[in-house]
């Protein structure tokens, strides 16, 4: 036991709570077998620490102490709730196995965090539920914070979380790290959840703020945690690199008034060099590992952009080559659209326009505002005023995001005044 002066004590406990409470929770869920009960046990354990540690000192291994106390509190509650039933009928997970926490290996505790991540991102939960649960249980956001970030009512967020937990309980979703054969597929869902959270922060799908920074920061933090837990997976490195490289442009993406600034017009000295350097290192490492995929390739494209001293000096050939590989492993009209933009940068807007017309004739992306915005831009650069105006109007109808609307409106007005 370590003696701590009382005034330092609550700060120490607060710090411990902030840094360790998710890890303690992840292990308690495994030992208790239920997320709700584990959360209560976590709360009780910290409450007990608050009462006992000022007198008895801080235990040598505070996390092990908290886990042990939390588990006993849960067993206690379970026994009390069942006191009218036969006491013997305590299920195995609540009573039988006594765990000595000094014997708990770090591996096991790390695995608990992975178990929690894979459970929150289980494919039988809806994407909305996966996101809400991940943010609350792993990132420790409150229900109200999640609601604010996703522009929904707190009660809607609360119900998503309640239902997701009920689903985990009823469907008996196991608390485990997927077997090696399933890992890649299940990991893909986890990466998707993280990237959705990042994108929600990076480019809010509606509302007035272009970036809801907190979500991007949480997503990057999740990516780091996942990489720490599974260091050899190429796509985790690729996703983290992609997020860092996108986020590095945050300061340069908007004016002080919140208006959009396109990549070519951004002040590159505002880009976050630290994030760029980290992202580039990660992407190079990921490209050298087996199993790299869409995130790594997108990160590689982002890396080519950020390494160029100016928009004119961008290596478009390299970017087009990366898009070609990307399209081969993951055919997608959105990627085709982006490739068309890169080709137009190298070969001129007429070629880009042809590629877009091909997309439209296949009926693809016809409700995607970026497609019409890109089409409008190509027409504008070709001096086709009427076609450009029509495409800008189409794009305006499809976007709900205020800064984008203002940007498109500005271009439209310029053309109409010509």
């Amino acid at each position: 036991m370590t003696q701590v002066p009382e005034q330092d004590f609550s700060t120490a406990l607060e710090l411990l709570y902030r840094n360790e409470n998710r890890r303690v929770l992840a292990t308690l869920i495994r030992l208790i077998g239920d997320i709700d009960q584990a959360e209560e046990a976590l709360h009780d354990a910290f409450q007990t620490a608050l009462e006992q540690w000022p007198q008895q000192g801080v235990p040598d291994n505070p996390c092990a102490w908290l886990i042990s106390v939390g588990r006993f509190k849960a067993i206690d509650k379970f026994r009390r709730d069942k006191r009218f039933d036969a006491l013997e009928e305590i299920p195995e997970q609540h009573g039988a196995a006594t765990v000595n926490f000094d014997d708990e290996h770090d591996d096991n505790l790390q695995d608990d965090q992975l178990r929690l991540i894979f459970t929150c991102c289980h494919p039988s939960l809806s994407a909305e539920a996966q996101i809400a649960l991940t943010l609350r249980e792993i990132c420790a956001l409150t229900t109200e914070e999640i609601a604010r970030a996703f522009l929904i009512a707190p009660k809607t967020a609360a119900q998503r979380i309640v239902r997701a937990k009920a689903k985990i309980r009823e469907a008996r979703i196991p608390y485990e790290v997927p077997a090696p054969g399933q890992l890649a597929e299940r990991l893909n869902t986890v990466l998707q959840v993280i990237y959705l959270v990042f994108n929600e922060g990076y480019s809010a799908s509606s509302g007035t703020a272009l970036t809801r920074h907190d979500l991007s920061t949480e997503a990057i933090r999740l990516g780091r945690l996942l990489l720490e837990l599974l260091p050899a997976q190429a796509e985790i490195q690729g996703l983290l690199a992609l997020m860092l490289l996108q986020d590095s442009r945050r300061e340069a993406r908007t004016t002080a008034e919140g208006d959009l600034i396109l990549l070519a017009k951004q002040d590159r000295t505002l880009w976050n060099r630290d994030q760029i350097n980290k992202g580039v290192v990660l992407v190079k490492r990921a490209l050298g590992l087996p199993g790299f995929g869409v995130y790594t390739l997108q990160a590689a494209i982002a890396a080519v952009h950020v390494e160029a001293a100016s928009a004119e000096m961008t290596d478009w050939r390299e970017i087009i080559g990366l898009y070609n590989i990307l399209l081969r492993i993951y055919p997608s009209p959105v990627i085709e659209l982006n490739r068309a933009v890169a080709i137009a940068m190298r070969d001129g807007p007429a070629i880009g326009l042809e590629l877009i017309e091909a997309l439209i004739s296949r009926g693809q992306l016809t409700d995607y505002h970026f497609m019409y915005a890109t089409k409008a831009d190509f027409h504008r650069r070709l001096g086709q005023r009427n076609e450009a105006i029509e495409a800008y109007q189409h794009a305006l109808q499809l976007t709900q995001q205020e800064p984008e609307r203002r940007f498109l409106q500005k271009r439209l007005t310029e053309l109409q005044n010509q």
Partner: protein
Amino acid sequence: MKYLCLICAEKVMEQMPQADADKHYEEYREFTSNIRASGHFVDCNRLLPPSAAITIRLRKGKISSTDGPFIETKEQLGGYYVIEARDLNEAIQVAAKIPGAALGCVEIRPIANDPQTLDVLGLS
């Protein structure tokens, strides 16, 4: 965050047979002592039956009053807890254990803590 938990049921204590009420009181003793220990407790009390309620309105400077609660439903407001919880989902977990939740229902209402409210009410 603080949350008000309003307990609604078809029968309040006064309308139950004495033995049932006694049992229900004991459940409340245990629940309340549990949430005091867990640090969630802020305040609570039981309300006298709706037959004791008067609803008032001030119209053109005159008080008009009617007997009874302002909403007539089968379920009646029987008591309340004010709890402190990390977020709405923790409040749900705590409120689910209120004994009245098993007989009637519990409405959870987040208590405002915006600067204007706190200032107006002298709570800041």
